[in-house]
């Protein structure tokens, strides 16, 4: 590969992708979990751990080993690509395939099943005998600002309008598959946002012991994510379809930079959220002697 701005950019993004996704973010997440187990031991806070402590620790050890193995594998791919890639495009392809493995394998094989098991375990726990609730009708605007809702709907509608335009004026063999995927996903997101806006706000509690303020925060985050995903995907859909229809042109090597940067930001957001929750969450409700629960 020749030394130019594109090569430097791709090298920098690939290197940061390995460091952030495979080493830094998992290490911070494990540190949060270790701190949680240390500060709030299962003996004093039994309601915080629906699964046996040993099982959680075993899963975390597997999670660490998987991340390290994938991280070192990605580093090997990085070095090999740096030495042998015929062009920046091939280097970018290696980076793109690597990011998929780095991000999805630990997430889907270990983190997601563990999260599902913990959620199920929490929901199966008997609720506290004394429970409170706010005697008011919750609306989605209690959790998310109208601006946020407007952005979600507006940008998603823009994406779908773009789908319609591509279907009407630029439909060909290259655009049909991106069009179907982007429109289907966009329509699903629009459906989710519409349901969130119109359906009564009776979402299940994340866990029976979570304090009122934390339940509110969890729901707020959940609703913000739905409308934020709608807005974000609307922009992405527009960009993706315009790119497929070749109405905008970007060097194909750069197309691999965008998902990598987004996934790195996503990983950083996930760990910062874990830290934020750790700092603000009320853990006293999980104590063995706690029998009450505040209103959300």
């Amino acid at each position, binding site marked *: 590969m020749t030394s130019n701005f594109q090569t430097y950019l791709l090298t920098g993004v690939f290197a940061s992708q390995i460091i952030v996704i495979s080493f830094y973010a998992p290490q911070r997440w494990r540190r949060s979990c270790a701190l949680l187990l240390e500060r709030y031991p299962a003996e004093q806070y039994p309601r915080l751990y629906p699964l046996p402590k040993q099982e959680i620790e075993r899963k975390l050890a597997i999670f660490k080993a998987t991340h390290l193995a994938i991280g070192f594998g990605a580093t090997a791919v990085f070095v090999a690509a740096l030495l042998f890639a015929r062009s920046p495009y091939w280097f970018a392809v290696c980076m793109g395939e690597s990011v998929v493995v780095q991000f999805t394998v630990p997430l889907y094989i270990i983190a997601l099943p563990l999260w599902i098991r913990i959620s199920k375990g929490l929901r199966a726990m008997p609720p506290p*005998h004394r*429970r*409170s*609730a706010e*005697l008011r*009708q919750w609306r989605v605007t209690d959790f998310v600002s109208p601006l946020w809702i407007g952005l979600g709907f507006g940008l998603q509608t823009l994406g779908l309008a773009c789908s319609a335009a591509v279907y009407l004026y630029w439909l060909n063999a290259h655009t049909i598959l991106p069009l179907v995927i982007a429109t289907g996903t966009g329509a699903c997101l629009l459906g989710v946002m519409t349901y969130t806006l119109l359906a*009564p706000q*009776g979402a299940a509690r994340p866990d*029976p012991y979570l304090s009122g303020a934390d339940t509110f925060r969890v729901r707020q985050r959940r609703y913000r994510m739905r409308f934020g995903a709608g807005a974000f995907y609307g922009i992405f859909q527009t960009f993706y379809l315009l790119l497929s229809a070749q109405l905008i042109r970007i060097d194909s090597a750069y197309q691999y930079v965008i998902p990598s940067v987004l996934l790195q930001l996503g990983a950083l957001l996930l760990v910062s959220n874990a830290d934020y929750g750790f700092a603000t969450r009320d853990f006293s409700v999980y104590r063995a002697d706690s029998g009450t629960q505040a*209103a959300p």
Partner: protein
Amino acid sequence: MQITIDDRSPVPVFSQLISQIREAVRSGQLKPGATLPAIRQLAVELQINPNTVAKAYRLLERDAVIETGPRGSFVHLEGKKHSRVNLGADALSALSQIVRSLRTKGLTDSEIRNAFVSVMKE
């Protein structure tokens, strides 16, 4: 305004709901026309059966403390006045008077109980 239920209380959960909503209306914490949470929402928040909430709402509606329409349940416009009326307590008071007078006339408790059961079967 918060509503609290206690599983360990000898008072049934629906009665706990009724008495707290009634008290909130009586004290003015819930204004006439104020929207009450949907049955499903309140059931989810309190982690109780939706039928329990529905039963409480139905009895409050019967006493005209709340009213339910297609857009949900609201505090009745005359809810504050009606919340002072407790049909359950009224019934208890009326029955106590009758039982007392029947005892005065010399009827035994089992005769009164049999008479009550016969009337309830009608």
